[in-house]
């Protein structure tokens, strides 16, 4: 028991508590550092990077754009930077898979809620607004994602992801497997049921006089009898993918056979809404179904038994959003939503780019589709097949896992920098932080003290003030008097104690003092003062008074 108490006492000592606190602090720091390091020590699955050459990267697509003379760039920090683009109408923002969430702060809403404390996954609201603003200013966005974190972004444009896997009983690439689903559309430019073909919005398909030469290269675009000769691939520029050099003919087909890999689909209810300028372009077949119960199989439901069936197609897989109605203006902002993140990966976009996939993947129109969008977005003004010097294609790398150590940290730091200088709440917090830091510096940081010599010897040694009261008590005064009597009469303590009262009375020979010695009663202060005075006078010799 004693042992336990001693141990308990030792545990509660300040020294132990301090040591325990320090240990806990360092343990916490260690755990945090390990947590951070863990993300770098475990190999991240890097994919859909515009700068990667793996089968699931977008290197082929980016290289081809570069070869067409269009500048490409990667956004590693945050889409907030889209607001800095000077010519958004000639810019394309490509989002291929949103692999991860990122940190965010509450934000000012600008409405009656004032502040929104929670953020959805994926892009922050500020980033989504920045992307929306980019589109409103004429920018083009290609959003390729299936089960990633882009639902919030799609939702901003009124579109909802189903979040379930799309299968197709028939229209899949039989050479490969059921994961590769075909999405075929024969009239990709018939946005609505009654709009008719709007292929003329794409400069690579625009041929008003129907003379077989696109208007951009036609000497007289309105006169079918005037046919331009001697067109080469080089002259075709961004439309070269539509030009057959061998036959010198143009491909004016408006359909695409798009090959997807493990796609999802958009919600039926929101995928098509012409009023809101949302047009479902590419749909799956009637044989397709959405694995709504996520069991990986086609389930035929039986409502009475409580079995939920998988939803039957067709489902929108490719949706086009136009800022202006039907994207009629060439500088209208547009968003191309595809519910498959791998549509432009090297192995599907250009199988020959990755030798392992050469010959395995069936021919598809993924490349044609992508380059059509590039041409439609960048060839504005109907003057040339070449993109202007302002044209730029930006790949969003901010939500991709980086392959090199330190890349994620760099991205995070860059993100923070951009975030804290673009988001109003973050800016406010940053400003407050700076203000507090500056105040702290002003308060805490002190210049070295001026040196000066200080002469300081003031010191007082006090006695025990509590004893003063004791020396005012009658019994103490009486004791002092008796000692004085004994000393004056040169008596030992024993002799004095044995002295009869009468003898003592005779020795004192003072009525007042005698009364004081023998009468143990309460004395008033002035009485005691008088008695002390008498004691002082009592037994005084001449030499005493002289001293």
């Amino acid at each position, binding site marked *: 028991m004693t042992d336990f108490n001693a141990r308990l006492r030792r545990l509660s000592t300040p020294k132990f508590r301090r040591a325990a606190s320090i240990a806990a602090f360092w343990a916490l720091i260690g755990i945090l550092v390990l947590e951070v390091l863990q993300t770098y020590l475990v190999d991240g699955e890097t994919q859909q990077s515009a700068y990667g050459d793996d089968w699931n990267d977008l290197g082929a697509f980016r290289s081809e754009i570069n070869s067409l003379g269009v500048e490409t760039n990667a956004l590693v920090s945050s889409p907030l930077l889209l607001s800095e683009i000077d010519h958004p109408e000639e810019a394309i923002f490509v989002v291929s898979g949103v692999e991860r969430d990122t940190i965010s702060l509450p934000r000012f809403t600008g409405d009656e809620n004032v502040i929104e404390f929670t953020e959805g996954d994926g892009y922050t609201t500020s980033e989504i607004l920045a992307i929306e603003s980019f589109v409103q200013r004429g920018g083009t966005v290609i959003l390729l994602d299936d089960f990633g974190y882009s639902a919030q972004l799609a939702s901003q444009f009124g579109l909802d992801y189903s979040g379930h896997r799309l299968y197709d009983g028939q229209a899949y690439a039989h050479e490969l497997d059921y994961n590769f689903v075909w999405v075929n559309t024969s009239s990709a430019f018939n946005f609505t049921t009654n709009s008719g073909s709007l292929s003329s919005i794409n400069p690579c398909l625009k041929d008003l006089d129907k003379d077989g030469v696109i208007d951009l290269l036609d000497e007289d675009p309105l006169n079918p009898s005037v046919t331009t000769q001697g067109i080469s691939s080089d002259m075709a520029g961004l439309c070269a993918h539509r030009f057959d050099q061998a036959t010198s003919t143009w491909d004016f087909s408006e359909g695409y056979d798009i090959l997807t890999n493990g796609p999802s689909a958009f919600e039926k209810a929101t995928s098509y809404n012409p009023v809101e300028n949302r047009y479902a372009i590419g749909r799956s077949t009637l044989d397709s179904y959405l694995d709504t119960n996520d069991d990986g199989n086609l389930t035929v439901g039986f409502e009475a038994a409580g079995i939920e069936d998988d939803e039957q197609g067709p489902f929108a897989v490719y949706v086009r959003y136009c800022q202006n109605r039907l994207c009629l203006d060439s500088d209208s902002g547009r968003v191309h939503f595809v519910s498959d993140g791998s549509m432009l990966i090297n192995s599907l976009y250009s199988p020959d780019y990755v030798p392992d996939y050469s010959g395995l993947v069936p021919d598809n129109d993924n490349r044609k589709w992508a380059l059509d969008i590039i041409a439609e977005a960048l060839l504005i003004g109907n003057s040339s097949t070449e993109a202007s010097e302002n044209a730029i294609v930006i790949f969003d790398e901010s939500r991709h896992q980086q392959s090199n150590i330190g890349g994620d940290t760099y991205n995070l730091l860059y993100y923070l920098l951009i975030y804290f200088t673009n988001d109003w709440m973050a800016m406010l917090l940053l400003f407050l932080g700076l203000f507090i830091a500056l105040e702290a510096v002003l308060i805490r940081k002190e210049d070295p003290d001026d040196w000066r010599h200080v002469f300081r010897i003031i010191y007082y040694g006090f006695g025990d003030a509590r004893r003063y009261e004791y020396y005012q008590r009658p019994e103490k005064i009486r004791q002092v008097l008796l000692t*004085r009597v004994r000393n004056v009469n040169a008596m030992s303590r024993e002799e004095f104690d044995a002295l009869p009262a009468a003898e003592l009375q005779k020795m004192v020979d003072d009525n007042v003092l005698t009364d004081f010695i023998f009468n143990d009663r309460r004395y008033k202060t002035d009485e005691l003062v008088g008695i002390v005075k008498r004691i002082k006078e009592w037994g005084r010799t001449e030499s005493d008074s002289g001293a």
Partner: protein
Amino acid sequence: MGKDRVRFGGLDMWTRKAAIMFTSGISLILIGMMISNFQLMIVGLAFLSLLAINGWVAGHSDLLIERQTSATNVYKGDDIVVSLTVTNKSYRRTQQLELFDNVPHEMKMRKGINQMRMNLGPGQTAKLRYVVRCPLRGHYTIGPVSVRYRNAFNLFVNETKMDDRSDITVFPQIRDIEEALLRSDVPKMYSGATTLKTPGPGMEFYALREYLPGDSFRSINWKALARTGEMMVNEKTRDAVTDVFVIVDTRDVSRIGTVLKNPLEMGTVAAASVSNYFLKRRDSVSLVTYGSRMDYLPPETGDKQYFKILSGLASVEAKGSMPLQAVTNALSPRMSRGSPVFIISSLEGDGTTLPAIRNLSGKGHEVIVLSPSSIDLERLVSRIPRMSYEVLKLERQNRLTAIAGYGAKVIDWMPDVELSQALLQIKLG
């Protein structure tokens, strides 16, 4: 004299100005980024650049600092002249250099100042001279020298200390008490040096003995060497009359009063003066101090003993509560019979005073009690009620009377009375 060399390199401390400039620079850059204002960002960058350049172009010096003091042992109240010579041994200017010689707080600056700001060119020398007064007894140290370097814009500061120290001992003052002791009863018993028939330092011849290593050549008896062929030395008789014991109370209660006027300070002055008087007469003097422990300096005579006594008195502090009887009991076997004993104590808070003095008197020692009146010293710093004061004084008188009754000569030393005046009271005791 102390001499040391100090080098500066690197910059240790940011000034407030630098810290403000740094935070302002960062703030301007960030605010500039927030509002997309490049001018602000450039100003912020300029701030940071200035800091960086200042940090990079840091000056450094190689200084030689030398301190000289006019004395290392002084009496309480004496002055010491300190001079500090600073030489720039490097090939660059020192820029803003600040020097501060750390002087103990107990010393008072009388003339000059113990710090200097300078900007020395290569090889240049500057001299700092100041005078300090030492009003308090004790052992003190002047130094180290603090050196502070500031760069041109006062953004960074580098401080270092040159660990050169000069030790100073301040002895208690010596009062002239010869006349007082001649006129009082005390010295009549010890009428000066008479020859003792024991060998020791003295003037008269005592005997011849063989030379031993360490003996002075002056003491060799050349005639005896010529006669016998062996090295013989003259041995002298000891001149001292007797051993005088000075017992000083350094208990905690002896601190009562002010820093300059308290039983301990008065006691050290009295002990030094009495020792000085008897040592001049070639008597042997022993010093005993007691407080938290007893320090005993065996009886000796001569200048060396004088110095030892003063050093011992310089270092005493008011501490502990050792009873007097424990001291006298411990000393008893070492005290020659009849030797006079000076007890310097306020006699407060020690119930063994009476039996201790009774024992000493009983053994034939002449006991002189010099008692600073602690009640009156306490009155200098506390408000003691009048009646308490009177009763305390009566009690003290009783105590002194009782001591006198055992044959001791008692001096009630009031704070405002000079030592020589107080000693005259012995006649009246």
